[in-house]
Each structure stands twice: as structure tokens, then as C-alpha cells.
């Protein structure tokens, strides 16, 4: 394989790793952001839930920004097509992410207006958790593109069965991450509720996977011939099974681990179905692939050096920070 092709393949995987890292890490605070009104029964419990993500959510969100930057650098055409094409849908995501980012900090200072920012945090978490999957479903299902690689559909083109099923599956997976994290970081009644929620969401992700499978079978039957997709799909089911048993035994750390591996395997499945495409076009000859969407070999090489130099450090100090804040979240001291 030519070096340039090798680099393109490596970057296809690395972009997937960045988005999977985002889903796993920011996934739990996104999911918790949606779930807290259903988990917390009083102010103290609310405080505990917010505090469990307070010190780490911001670092988690950087996975998204880095993923976006890496997509821009490695596959600029994919970045350009998706973000200009899915304009209104992604603007909704941006508005939600902006409000969500400030709301957690603001609510701890806002006094009487606290309720507004709590609501903003919930809504701002819900929209991205749902729409990320819808967007992914669209690039997988295929969208109308012209010969200049520009999107020719509109907002409603995006709301088709496969993308919507992907959106719901993604939402369930984010909620699963959030409830598994909550179970890990809390005690007592709150923890029992979080475990029940995680158990329900495990089933929801399973149902989402079945529906997604049906949608892929209906709309992209060719993709089902791919063995790696079946392997990753099997890993999703294995993770979900281990997750359910861990929850039943009250082993919350393992439950969170398997919830995370399920998310990782979901990304693996989608990647295997979708490769080598970035954006499938309604007319397959116009699809954006790792070949026609990529940067030059030099840029991909420079980016690889940057990633290999930087990401081990990122992983190391992220682990350090999580260790600083390990253990159950408490209510001691003010804040949120």
C-alpha cells in the first residue's frame, strides 16, 4: 500500500478513535445532563450529580473539538461538506453545546436564576445527544451531493428512518453512559435509581441496535457482507450482556467499563459498515471517501506526528485528573 493510502487509513481510524473517545468521556456528562431531572429527587442529590462531572466535563468536551479539528485537517472535504450541508441541524447542536457549556458554571453562581441554567443544561445536553446520531446516520445512509461535493438536500432530507434510528440508538447509548457514571459516583437511593436507569438503558441500546440492524439491512444491504462489522456488532452484544450482569451484581466500575466498550464497539461497527466512505452520496460515484476527501500525504504525516506525540500525554494527565477526583461525589462545601 502506498504511504499516502496508509496514512489515510490510519486517519480514518484515528478520527473514529477521537469521536469514540468523545462519546465515552463527554458521553457520560452529556447523558447525565439529560438524566439528572429523572435521577435526583432533592437538591442534595442534584448537587451530587453535578459535582460528579464538574471537574472533568470540560476536558471531556475537548475530545469533540479535537475530533472536529482533526477531521478538518485530515479530511477537509468531509468537514466542509458535513458542516455546511447539515447546517441548521448542526447549528442547533452548536447552540445547545454553547448553552450547556456555560450553564453548569453559571448555575453555581446564579442565585435565583439557577433554574434557568439547570433547564439549559438539560436541553443543551439532550439535543446533541440525539442529533449526533442523526448526523452520523445521514453520512452512513447517504445524502444528495453534487459534483463539487456540496450537499443539495435540505433540513428535512436529514430526517429519514435510518438516521432517526441511529439518533435514538445514540441517545440511548449516551443515557447509558450517564446512568452508569451516576451509579459509579453515588451511594444509597440515588445509586439504586441510577442502576435501574442503567439497566433500562442497556435494554434500550439493545433495542436500538436491533432497529439499526433492520434499517441497515433495508437500506444498505451490501454493508452486511462485511465481516468486521459483524465482529464489532458481536462485541456490542457481549458488552451489553456483561454490563447487565455487572449491574445486577452491583459492580459499578465494571458496568461503566462495559458501557464504554459497548460505545466503542458501536463506533467500530459503524466504521466497518461505512469504510472507506466519509459521506456516502445518493449517487455512489460522488461519495466522499478517505481518498478524495483527504489532505496531502505531508499534512497527514505531520498530523500523525502531532497525534503520536500529544495523545499519550493527554491520556496520561486525563488519568491523573480522574484519580484526583476518584471516589464518590459528595455535597461538602458550596458550589452548584
Amino acid at each position, binding site marked *: 500500500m502506498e504511504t499516502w493510502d496508509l496514512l489515510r487509513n490510519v486517519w480514518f481510524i484515528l478520527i473514529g478513535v477521537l469521536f469514540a473517545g468523545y462519546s465515552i468521556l463527554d458521553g457520560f456528562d452529556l447523558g447525565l445532563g439529560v438524566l439528572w431531572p429523572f435521577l435526583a429527587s432533592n437538591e442534595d442529590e442534584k448537587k451530587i450529580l453535578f459535582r460528579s462531572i*464538574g*471537574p472533568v466535563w*470540560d*476536558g471531556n468536551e*475537548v475530545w*469533540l*473539538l*479535537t475530533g*472536529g*479539528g*482533526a*477531521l*478538518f*485537517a*485530515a479530511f*477537509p*472535504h468531509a*468537514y*466542509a461538506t*458535513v*458542516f*455546511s450541508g447539515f*447546517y*441548521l441541524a*448542526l*447549528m442547533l447542536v452548536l*447552540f445547545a453545546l*454553547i*448553552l450547556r*457549556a*456555560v450553564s*453548569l*458554571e*453559571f448555575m*453555581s*453562581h*446564579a*442565585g435565583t436564576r439557577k433554574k434557568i*441554567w439547570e433547564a439549559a443544561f438539560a436541553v443543551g445536553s439532550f439535543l446533541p445527544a440525539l442529533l449526533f446520531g442523526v448526523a452520523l446516520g445521514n453520512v452512513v445512509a447517504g445524502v444528495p451531493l453534487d459534483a*463539487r461535493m*456540496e450537499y443539495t438536500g435540505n433540513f428535512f432530507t436529514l430526517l429519514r428512518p435510518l438516521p432517526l434510528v441511529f439518533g435514538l440508538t445514540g441517545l440511548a447509548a449516551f443515557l447509558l453512559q450517564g446512568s452508569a457514571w451516576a451509579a459509579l459516583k453515588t451511594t444509597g437511593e440515588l445509586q439504586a435509581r441510577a442502576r435501574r436507569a442503567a439497566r433500562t438503558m442497556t435494554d434500550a441500546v439493545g433495542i436500538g441496535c436491533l432497529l439499526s440492524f433492520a434499517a441497515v439491512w433495508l437500506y444498505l444491504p451490501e454493508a452486511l457482507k462485511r465481516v468486521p462489522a459483524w465482529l464489532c456488532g458481536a462485541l456490542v452484544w457481549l458488552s451489553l450482556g456483561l454490563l447487565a450482569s455487572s449491574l445486577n451484581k452491583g459492580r459499578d466500575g465494571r458496568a461503566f467499563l462495559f458501557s464504554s466498550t459497548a460505545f466503542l464497539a458501536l463506533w467500530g461497527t459503524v466504521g466497518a459498515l461505512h469504510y472507506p466512505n466519509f459521506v456516502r452520496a445518493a449517487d455512489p460515484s460522488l461519495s466522499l471517501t478517505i481518498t478524495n476527501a483527504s*489532505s*496531502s500525504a*505531508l*499534512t497527514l504525516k*505531520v498530523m500523525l506526528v*502531532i497525534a503520536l506525540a*500529544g*495523545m499519550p500525554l*493527554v491520556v496520561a*494527565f*486525563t488519568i491523573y*485528573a480522574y484519580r*484526583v*477526583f476518584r471516589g464518590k461525589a*459528595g*455535597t*461538602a*462545601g*458550596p458550589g452548584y
Partner: protein
Amino acid sequence: MNPVFLARLQFGLTAGFHFLFPPTTLGLTLVIVILESLHLKTGRDVYRNVSAFLVRILGVVFVMGVATGIALEFAFGNNWSAYSRTVGDIFGAPLAAEGIFAFFLESVFLGVLLFGRGRISRAKYWLSAFLVFFASHLSGLWIIIANSWMQTPAGFRMEAGRAVLTDFGRAALNPSTVIRFVHTILGGWITGSLVAAGIAAWHLVKGRAREKAGLLLKTSLAVFVVAAIFQLGSGHLHSVQVTRTQPEKMAAFEALWKTQTGAPFTIFGIPDEKAEKTRLAVRVPGLLSFLAGFDTSTRIQGLNEFPKDARPPVLLPFASYHIMILLGLVFILAAVVGAALAARKRLADARWYLKLLVFFVPLPYLANELGWISAEVGRQPWAVYRVLRTSDAVSPAVPGGNILFSLIMFTLIYALIAAAGISIILRLVRRGLDEPATEKEGQSPPGGTVPSRGGN
């Protein structure tokens, strides 16, 4: 409405609003690192308490910077897809590198800074503060690299209408990167230190928390004095660089219509672009040439050397650039007066000066925005200087109506965030430096207050 105009307006609004926060972070983290270093060295709690107060403010400022930065990471894809396709081979890498090298570090350790005191040793807490400071500057470097490449592109060749990277080092360290980085960082130090000094001065005027306020004032004023004076040098070098590498931009800054030796520096004037004249001009003969080459006979290119469709607008860059310089001189004056008062140990009693500092807090924000407007409007009509026109850089697939809708939404959301953020910061300031330094730090028992050794 014209999509190019709307897309520019949206980028201007979102980037201009975002640019309020990172400079504040640059200066505040520097003051925090100094205070934490003093705390580490002396072990005195007063340094820690003052630093903890600034960390609370930083938390709010930082999160607003993060929130508004999200939109910018994706703005190039949203509204500028042609730009992304044409120069993505070069422009994307610094954005990704910012995330990997700087923003992860900054965000992760800001979490430690905000919530970790009491959970880790003093030395590790100091290191966290230093890493947030270091990473915020590194983050600035990558963003300046990306932006400077738009000003003075290098290290690439054009292939089938696309810029293709040929030399990453030259693209990153292009002719304007280093000086623009220094200039922007110093602008940030001026901003953050003046915010801190203004808060300290307000406390002293109100007679509150005198010891802590005096200490914060001295520390932040020291940073302010150094940054304001060095900014004169960096501003000068930056102007010389612009004269050399983007002559039409300097011609617009100075409303220099015709190429000349002995070019004057225009102190005041109202440029009339149609008549190619500057009305009511007050000029110092030969000064511009002298500044550019330390010789009044230095030849400076005027706008007449450039085709009309390749000239930047003049009025806005001229006005922004000149008011920015005026503000820079005001800062130097304030710095010198402050240093003189401090040297005579009369700083805490000079009420007029303390009040002045409070009123000065908005000025560095104005200076930053004006400098940025000069740089970006002065680059027009190019998105990437002499490579890609702004009018060719927008997304062909996005209708003007969609840009207008998102522009309105951004305006509303940013107005909401600005109002809430400012009111929260003002509330934190009014609560004051004597507020127990325990918020979010997990070091006090539930419902407890600061142990007696912490109060003073």
C-alpha cells in the same frame, strides 16, 4: 441578503465575542501563577486566598471562552466550506494541534484548579496552576499560527486551485507568527492584569480587605507595567512587519494614498476612500518612514500601487489602528504613574489613581478588539492574503436565510451569556476578596467556614 456579508458578520460577531475571554485568561493565569508561587515559597495563606478568588473569576471567564470557542471550531465548515476545501490542507492542522497539545491540558488542569485544592499537595496544585497558564499560552500560539497563515501564508504551493502543504515549519512560523503571538500575548497580559488591578483598586477605594487588595494590586500592577511597556516595542515591530509583508494593509492603517519617501504619520484624520484623500489630517512629516526603517527617507508603498479590487477598506482599519495605538499609549502612561506611586509607597492612598484603574478595566478589551479588527479588515479583500478572496471562501450550499437565522440566534444567545456572565462576575467581585476561599475547593467541612488561620 448577501451571503458573503452575512457570513462575515457572523464570523465577526462570534470571533469578536470569543476574543473577549482568552486574553483575560492569559493575563489572569499569569497573575494566579505569581500568587501561587509566592504561596508555595512563603507558605502564607493570604496569597492562596487571593489566588483562590481569582480562580473563581477565571472559572467563569474560561467557561465563556470555551462555550464561544466551540462555534469557531466548526465555523469554517459551516459558513466557509470553500475556504475549508481550498486551504484545509494547511489550516486544519494548527486547530487540531491546539486541541491535542494545549486545550486538553488547559481544560483538564483547570478542573483540578477549580476543584482540586485540598485534594492534592501544594506543589501539585502550583503545577496545575502553571500548566493552565502554560497551556493557555500554547493554545494562543496555535490559534495565532492559523490566523497568521491567513495574513502571511508560507510553506505551501497551489495545486489545481488548492493550497498544498510543502513545509510545515515554514507554514507554522510564517513571517508574521512570532511577532503577532508576542503582541497578542502582551495584549492578554495587559487585559488580565488590569482586570485584577481594577478589582483590587475597587476594594481599596471601598476600604475592604485592605491587605489582600493591596497585595493583589501590587502583583497585578507589576504585570501591567511590564506588559504595557513591552507592548510598545512589540507593536512597533509588528507594524514594521506589516509594512514589509502586507504593504497595502499598512497603507490602509495610515491612509497613505500615494507611495512616498518621508511618509508622514497621520495622528488624526478622516479618510475619504472615494476621493483618496484624508480630511482634517494632522500629520507628523516623515515619522511613518522613520518608524518603518529608522530613516525618514524610507520609501513606503501607498494604496495607489495596488489595483482597486485588491485594496482593503481604509476608514475602519485606519480608525481601529489609531485608537488602538492611542489606548496603548494611555496604558503606558497609567503604568508609569502606577510604578511611580508604588515606588513612593503611595499607591494604596492615591484614590484618584485607584478609581482610574477601575474605570480603565474595559479599555484593554476595546484595544484587543480594535487590534483584531485592524488585522482582519486590513487583510481584506482576502481571506488568505493574495491566495483566496473572502468572496470566494463562503459555503455555496448554505442559503443566506440560514446564515441570517443562525446570526440572529448567535446574537441572542451571546447577549444572554454576556448579561449572565457579567452579572455573575460582578457579583463575585462585590462579594469580595474576603469571601471565604473555600468555594468548590472541597477543603472545608460541610457548611464550614474558613479556619481562623485563613482569615485576615
